[in-house]
């Protein structure tokens, strides 16, 4: 391996004065001994200087104008990957919320139906207007010919007695819950 090949990797560092003093001394000694290395180093220096002095190109006059047009005319893609990701996340969140809401409603409904006559809207109507109560509807058909007034009163009395027999506290709660829900739906 010749002196030139050995010191080739250090040419740039030598030209830019990045060599440590020891290596620099060795390089300069090699320069004295090898004509080939000397020629190569001077040519690289020349080339380096020439590259630094190459003509500078400049942008066309309408560069800024075209850039402005580009910025304002290039449409923003709506279905970008990020947007699609965000939209799918939001959509899945909505679905999860909807499912949770429905399941909660089902749970509350099942809780209501487990207590007999509680939470039934007709019960309220029963109490308010016994004539239109479900018990009074049974006062048609065969009972009509008998003593309807008695049956009616018996039934209504029975219903009223039933409603008073049942613990009124949960009944009121379920009623409140029902009316709240009705109000929410109206809103």
């Amino acid at each position, binding site marked *: 391996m010749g002196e030139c090949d050995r010191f080739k990797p250090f040419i*740039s560092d030598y030209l830019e004065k990045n060599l440590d003093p020891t290596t620099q001394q060795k390089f300069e000694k090699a320069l004295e001994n090898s004509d080939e290395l000397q020629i190569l180093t001077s040519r690289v220096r*020349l080339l380096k200087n020439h*590259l630094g002095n190459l003509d500078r190109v400049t942008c066309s006059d309408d560069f800024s104008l075209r850039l402005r047009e580009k910025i304002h005319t290039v449409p923003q893609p709506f279905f970008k990957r990020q947007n699609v990701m965000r939209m799918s996340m939001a959509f899945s969140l909505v679905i999860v919320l909807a499912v949770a809401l429905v399941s909660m409603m089902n749970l509350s409904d099942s809780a209501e139906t487990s207590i007999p006559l509680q939470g039934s809207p007709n019960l309220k109507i029963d109490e308010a207007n016994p004539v239109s109560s479900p018990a009074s509807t049974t006062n048609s058909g065969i009972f009509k010919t008998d003593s309807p007034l008695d049956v009616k009163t018996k039934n209504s009395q029975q219903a009223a007695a039933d409603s008073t027999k049942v613990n009124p506290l949960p009944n009121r709660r379920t009623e409140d819950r029902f009316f709240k829900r009705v109000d929410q739906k109206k809103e």
Partner: protein
Amino acid sequence: MTKSTTDGITQNTQAAKQPTDEELIARFQKGDAYAFDLLVKRYKDPLLNFTYRFIGDLVEAEDIVQETFYRVFKNKHYYKEVAKFSTWIYTIAGNLAKTELRRRKRRKIFSIHKETPMEKELEIPDLRTDPEKEVNTIVTEKLIQKAISNLPKKFRQVIVLRDIQGFSYEEISSIIKVPLGTVKSRVNRARLKLQEDLDFLQEDLEQLSL
């Protein structure tokens, strides 16, 4: 005399008041469009030089610079002040230039497959380049540009950034995301390769430098 001195002082204070790139991008991130205009004004020509020397075509180089600024505009909030603005924008331009080179390579492969012998014969020489009319420097410059274009991509990028754009090795290392030692080695090898390719031009270069 007094006037020139005061002019000098005024110029110095104006130069001192010049906002840095990082200040400008920060202003732009807050919505100041004028700061973006200043950045465009500051960087359009250096970026064009870089991309032109990298890909060797002025029209395409300008398109790449346009795209670079467009991306800066669009992704302004991605810039964080941990790196210099120049590093960031040169990285964008360099990546776009590399993409363009890859695209060009694919096109070239495709066109070679499609090219018939007849088409090859019909290639018309460029008559506009009259050697008698051409100035020596222009010819030399074209040859140098051609030699740069023939360098492998990784060598081309570092030599353009170092010798034409004048970046430090550390800055180049940040721009191309390669260790400092590798950058130094690549620059040296690129110079040696270029010197080898332009060996026939040495006399012209010597004359030009005189």
